[in-house]
């Protein structure tokens, strides 16, 4: 196995970024470099996945180096199956996002693609860092390119949305840092060693009271990112103003950083607090509110993109519900749902973007009857809608169903509220589909719309294939996740880890 595979993956987008910065400012060259880098990163991630040993619970491809010895911060990266899946999602979705920007960004393209690639490095870094300080660095690094993507290339209210996004998430991450520092000093107090290394900090047991403080500090950091109710209102604004690629990356990847944080850090680092009844109750109630509330608010949206944004609130509610069901089905279902949400909602945002390119509007009432004009678009949109609504044999069902069974095992009422969310999701999605694709063509502009172009089809086809693939044959996902999730459950709560 060639060494430094993971570091190569992490810094490959950075390399492309520097090449991009040094290259002459010709649009086609810039496009070529950006797409080439994204594809190369995707290929490298697949190579890593092919060498991944599936039956093994611990971290693989681990690399470590001293970084700032004075404070004990190290460069440690590594993968387990949970991070592997999210890394694969990252490289795939980033490739789609880079390719979909082909005609979107004709002014200042260099900065734009630089930011996309920087974002990719940041997100991969978040998913593979095994040192809290390194993680925090990447966590905040992600903010900067996204801030510029929204603020420079966004819609009319971009300044407001960008600043709201930046400040909101920065506020969260300050608390995150405080939580990390709390763990750092607790560890130093107990052992005299100052370190940010994740595996060393696990099993610290500083006592429930301190764990509680740390949990809620981490909560503020992660919950803003997910986003959990009621910390979600930065999301619709950021989505509506962001360019298509920005929305796709935001929904598919950035939100997953929050749920990943809960799984990777909150649960194993402060297990006593994470499993204490008040915390579980609060988290579950907030998740259930998000599921129902996000769906209801979606139902009322007049803006296509905002509707999809609020649907993310609802779908991410399932992810956090699964995590705090604290059993195998809940957590595994949550990870699968994160992947599925990344694919389906990413695709929904891509489709909104394709339509915005054509019509320069996102008002739902400006459309109607489009299935007559652009049947391929309508078909792809239908598959995506049903995938998002959780139809069996498509990907969305697998995750939601597994999460619900995890929740049901703990408390039937949770699952009951969850299925109400499923009914509502069919309602807002199908109503959206009806208002845009079905009915008579109300505006003549819509009669001459172009169907999906070759480039758009190239983006869409792999995602659709994955939608069917996961839906029809989900067993490999579970098999890959089983060791890591089982190990996590044992760390968190030995008795619960055994059961189901």
């Amino acid at each position, binding site marked *: 196995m060639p060494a430094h595979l993971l570091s190569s993956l992490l810094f490959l987008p950075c390399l492309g970024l520097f090449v991009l910065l040094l290259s002459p400012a010709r649009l086609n060259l810039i496009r070529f470099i950006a797409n080439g880098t994204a594809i190369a990163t995707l290929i490298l991630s697949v190579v890593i996945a092919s060498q991944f040993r599936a039956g093994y619970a611990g971290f693989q491809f681990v690399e470590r180096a001293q970084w700032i010895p004075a404070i004990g911060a190290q460069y440690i990266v590594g993968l387990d199956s949970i991070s592997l899946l999210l890394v694969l999602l990252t490289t795939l979705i980033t490739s789609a996002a880079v390719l979909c920007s082909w005609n979107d960004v004709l002014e200042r393209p260099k900065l734009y693609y630089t930011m996309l690639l920087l974002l990719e490095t940041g997100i991969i870094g978040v998913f593979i860092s095994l040192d809290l300080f390194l993680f925090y660095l990447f966590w905040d690094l992600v903010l900067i390119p996204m801030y510029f993507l929204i603020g420079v290339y966004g819609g009319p209210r971009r300044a407001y949305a960008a600043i*709201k996004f930046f*400040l*909101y998430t920065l506020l969260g991450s300050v608390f995150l840092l405080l939580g990390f520092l709390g763990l750092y000093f607790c560890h130093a107090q107990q052992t005299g060693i100052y370190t940010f290394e994740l595996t060393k900090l696990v099993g610290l047991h500083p006592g429930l009271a301190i764990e509680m403080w740390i949990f809620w500090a981490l909560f503020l950091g992660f919950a803003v990112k997910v986003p959990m109710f*009621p910390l*979600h*209102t*930065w999301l619709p604004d950021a989505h509506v103003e962001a360019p298509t690629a920005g929305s796709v990356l935001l929904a598919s990847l950035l939100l997953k950083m929050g749920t990943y944080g809960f799984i990777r850090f909150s649960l194993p680092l402060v297990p006593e607090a994470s499993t204490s009844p008040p915390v579980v109750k609060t988290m579950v109630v907030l998740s259930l509110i998000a599921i129902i*509330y996000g769906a*209801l*608010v979606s*139902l*009322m*949206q007049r803006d296509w993109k905002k509707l999809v944004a609020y649907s993310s609130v609802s779908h991410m509610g399932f992810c956090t519900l699964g995590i705090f069901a604290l059993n*195998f*089905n809940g957590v595994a279902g949550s990870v699968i749902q994160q992947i599925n949400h990344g694919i389906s909602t990413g695709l929904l945002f891509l489709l909104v973007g394709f339509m915005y390119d054509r019509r320069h509007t996102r008002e739902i009432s400006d459309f109607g*009857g489009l*299935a*007559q004009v652009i*049947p*391929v678009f309508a078909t792809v949109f239908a598959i995506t809608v*049903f995938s998002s609504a959780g*139809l*069996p*044999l498509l990907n969305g069902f*697998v995750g939601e*169903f*597994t999460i*619900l*069974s995890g929740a*049901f*095992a703990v408390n*039937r009422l949770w*699952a*009951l509220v969850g*299925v*109400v969310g*499923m*009914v509502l999701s*069919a*309602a807002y999605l*199908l*109503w959206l*589909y*009806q208002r845009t*694709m*079905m*009915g*008579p*063509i109300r505006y003549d502009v819509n009669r001459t719309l172009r*169907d999906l172009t070759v480039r758009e089809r190239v983006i869409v086809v792999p995602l659709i294939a994955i939608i069917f693939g996961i839906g029809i044959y*989900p*067993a490999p996902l*579970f*098999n890959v996740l089983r060791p890591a999730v089982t190990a996590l459950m044992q760390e968190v709560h030995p008795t619960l880890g055994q059961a*189901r």
Partner: protein
Amino acid sequence: MVDARSVAASYALVASFLTPVAGTLLIFFIGGFRTHPAKTPQSWPGIFAVALSALSIGLSIFAGIATRNGAALITQSGEWIPGFGPALSFQLDWLSAWLLILLDVIGLMVNLFSIGYMKEEPDQRRYFGGLLFFIANMKLLLLAGSYLLLFAGWEGVGLASYLLIGYHFERPQAADAATKAFIVNRIGDAGFVLAIIAMTLACGSTNYTTVSASASHIPHGSVVLIGSLLVVAAVGKSAQFPLHVWLPDAMEGPTPVSALIHSATMVCAGVYLLARSNFLYVLAPEVGFGVAITGAVTALFAASVALVENDIKRVLAYSTISQIGFMFMALGLGADRAAMYHVATHAFFKSLLFLCAGSVIHALHGEQNLKHMGGLRKELPVTFTTMCVAALTLAGLPGLAGYFSKDLILGASFESGYTPLAVIGLLTSLLTAIYSWRLISLAFLSHPRRHRLAAHEGTASMQIPMAVLAACCVLAGWLFVPIPWTGWRLMLGSAGIALAGIAIAWHYYVRHPEARAGLDQRFGPVAAFLRNRWFVDAVFEEHFLEGVVLRTAKGAAMGDALLIDGSVNGIAASSREFAAALSWSDGSIIDGTVRAISGFARFLSWPVRAFQTGFLQTYASIFLVIVLAALGYYLAR
């Protein structure tokens, strides 16, 4: 047990499922990836679909023969979603074999009929592809060996139904109906999802064999819970009160689709589900009783509404709801075989009624209002004859298939000892006879009530299926099942009721139509109640949908904008105001103090400063003045 015959039968079983699956894929891939429908309708998709349906009948019958001794054919199983048992398996026994062959027969007839009925439609591939897609999913539903796999087919037929109701998606009513059907069904599906989860937790698997074997060992509460949740699912799919609201609207789909999906097969999936789960209702008879009550209420309700409907397809839709109510009643009382028998006879006569209605609508260029028809007997003799057979079968005329199956159900209701249920059954039979003959009278008898062009029968491909199904209506009672015997009294009684109903309809709709005005006067409120469909639609749409769901959603959206985002913006705005205030105070108070101090120092220094001009000339002249003054002082002294 594993002999060559049963292996061959298993292969036939899988092939019978794969035939429509392959057909669905092929129909969209043959003819290239052309995305827009052809300008002129093509005929090959229809012929292709008919050929595949014929092939799959053969396969289904071959597989079905293996189950004739009551044996079940179970294929090897594997996991679909890990943690939910080996759900990927097929199971064919009398219950599914019965419905599988029935599905294939009706499917063939409907495909054949559609060739003629849909020949003007440009998008043949989408239509026939949709039908094959439906048949494939219905087969998955019937053949599945586990509840989880059944659920995949269950949702698949829902999707097919959505796509076909919305075949004319450019019409707003069709689009509305498709969306409504899917969402209302989703309510039932929610129950199904919870039922599957509950049974996995209780029994460790969702396979029928495992669940039925372990059902007696699990707590009674779990049995009741699982059983009730499955009832919720069945009520949604089979359009039972109060989740029936989607079915009448689903009539927006092309009429052959209504014949196949919304009368004969898909809507009976709920009956199949409950029959499949009858071991639960044996263990928890209280849930079974609830099923019977639901069925009885639905049967009476829908039959009474069918009395006053004027849209030919909506009459049939309410009739379907009512007949399925009968089946639910039988299921709830433990008479599974009677229910399944009624599923079969109902499939024949109801799909025939729909095909005939389609033939009428086709001949009248889209007219569906019974009040505008009349006198079609002479112009459409084949349709008239076959529809009469179907309507009389529905009415329960002795000797026709519907008579036998309905009698079994009525017999079961008398035997059960729940007299109110039996009375509701008899009353519903009377109403059924009345509305079925009312339908015939209004459409075919008397004279045309509207001026119209001459109507003509459709093509042979439309007439043949009608004739075949009419033959089934006549023969099914005699050929397929030994004649049931429920006793002379009941048989004569129900025959009398059917004849009485027909006589009443004859009286009010053929002999003395003018007498209806008096009827309307005397029973005005009742008629209004029926015309408003017992106000169920109004309650559902105005109170539940608009009053509760949409109002809550609106409240949530407003709360989100004002309260939650408002407080975020409020915090941002107040921090900005606070910063502005600080900035002001920084400028005027803090820096003001500094400036005041400096100003005071400046004030103190002004006499001195007056001399500090920086000009050499000034200093020189002051110096000169002082020197001169000093000199002058000394000189003057």
